[in-house]
């Protein structure tokens, strides 16, 4: 028997709807589950006090501070490299073998799993350069990891600045660098910032690459130098979840809730920023 095409269409549409809803439902359930179990324990006191008894008691203040230092350091290192790369690719060259090599490098870097970055950071920064387990080793490793994200978004942002802006700038007698600095970069800024914010989020959620470079030591004070070893939120959560006792599980949940909440805020603001930015030139 031949099923009428119209019926097949309706049937397939139903299947596709339900598959998509299942995917979205899983997402909402995951976020909801973590926040539901974690937020009740994530009190202001938890956020503003130092951890005690390997994290089973007290709060996560030093962990939050360590996380911020590492991810801000990583982005501070990666931004000039990434934005510089994007400016070169968009404003200073045509497509040729050099740009192909650069793009190939960035694409490969984007595909490398975080555990490989962890291995590399461990042998190169921690051991060979003698930086030990530290904020600096962690930031350097994460900087390499977030480079492709920053390059890609900055490239998209620069390309979305209309060609006419550049022509007008030249017509007024500006040099190429003046044009880039005064016309293109300000125009592309929100898009570039989006990439930086996305990179912050990626660094924050990373575990495998920082656990071997920033270490697992749980500091009982706010770190004061880039040479201090710290534990990031994700690493702290992982260790509480896998090595902690049943008493430390509420703290694990609370840490997870803070982590997920922070990443949600970071990603939603990045998307809003990009959306507004792209609408500007449409």
């Amino acid at each position: 028997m031949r099923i009428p095409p119209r019926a097949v269409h309706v049937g397939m549409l139903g299947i596709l709807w339900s598959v998509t809803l299942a995917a979205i439902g899983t997402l909402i359930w995951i976020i909801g589950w973590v926040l539901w179990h974690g937020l009740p324990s994530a009190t202001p006191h938890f956020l503003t006090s130092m951890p005690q008894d390997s994290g089973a008691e007290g709060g996560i203040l030093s962990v939050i501070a360590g996380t911020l230092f590492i991810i801000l350091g990583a982005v501070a290192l990666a931004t000039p490299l990434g934005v510089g790369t994007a400016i070169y690719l968009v404003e200073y060259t045509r497509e040729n073998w050099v740009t192909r090599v650069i793009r190939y490098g960035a694409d490969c870097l984007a595909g490398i799993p975080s555990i490989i970055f962890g291995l590399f950071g461990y042998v190169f920064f921690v051991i060979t350069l003698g930086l030990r387990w530290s904020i600096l080793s962690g930031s350097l490793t994460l900087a390499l990891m977030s480079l492709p994200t920053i390059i890609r978004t900055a490239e998209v942002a620069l390309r979305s600045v209309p060609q006419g802006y550049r022509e007008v700038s030249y017509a007024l007698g500006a040099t190429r660098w003046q044009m880039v600095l005064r016309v293109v970069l300000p125009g592309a800024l929100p898009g570039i910032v989006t990439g930086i914010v996305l990179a912050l989020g990626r660094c924050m959620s990373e575990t495998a690459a920082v656990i071997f470079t920033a270490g697992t030591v749980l500091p009982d004070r706010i770190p004061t130098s880039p040479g201090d070893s710290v534990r990031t939120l994700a690493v702290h959560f992982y260790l509480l979840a896998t090595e902690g006792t049943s008493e430390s599980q509420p703290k694990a949940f609370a840490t997870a809730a803070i982590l997920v909440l922070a990443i949600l805020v970071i990603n939603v603001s990045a998307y809003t920023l990009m959306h507004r930015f792209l609408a500007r030139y449409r």
Partner: protein
Amino acid sequence: MKQDSAIRLILLGLAMSSVAALAVITLFIFREGLPIIFRQGPGSFLFGSDWDPGAEPAAFGIFAMIAGTFAVTGGALLLGVPVGLGSAIFLSEFAPRKVATILKPALELLAGIPSVVFGYIGMLVLSPFIRDHIGGSGASVLAGSAILGIMILPTIISISMDTLRSVPRSYREGSFALGATGWQTTWKVTLPAARSGLVAAVILGMGRAVGETMAVIMVTGNTALVPKSPLSPARTLTANIAMQLNAAVGEHREALFACGVVLFVIIMVLNTFANWVAKLGKRA
């Protein structure tokens, strides 16, 4: 003009940073890992079934971990590919514009959730569920596959959607003009036109699954034996590295870097293949 060429040179230097990073990473991973592979012989390293760094003499055969990696990845694809492609097709071809503009970024949020959180859910919800309702100890290939299947969705969905959207409108209009239904158009016109991009999306999703570490460690049980069924525990290459690196010295550490070399090669082959397939489609 002198200033212009100086700036160009500086920017070129910055632009070489990612290439340089890739080169240094490759160099160091291979320098640490290759010697032991050749000392022991690639055959016995890759296909040796015994991993026992504590024994005298220590045994470094990673076949169980390679099998574990591919078992978990294969399972993840069985779940992630139909759901991922289905959602991508729905969002790009059938969903009302408003629905798609809200749901696409929402699904991409999945990519932002830390892998340790996925692992925790697997550990506390999925593994106990499998133990109580399906069988085995719960920490299994199945649990790892299910969690990874969800984790690779954003990769598959966002690349597939970009590919589907790049199929010219006129293809679909031509099909509708011949009286085809929406699904006939999708199945016979849009999907074949986007085929290579969709294959690339699946391969890149596979690369993500192979490289995932933390979530897998938390749910697969990590026994260094070739898994016999979806309910057996398994250890992946990534888990092997992450679990032992802190305690490893000497030959043991070299062997872990050698696992890194194998992982690196698998990922590079997958990514190069995905790139090649995607380009093939653009030329046609």
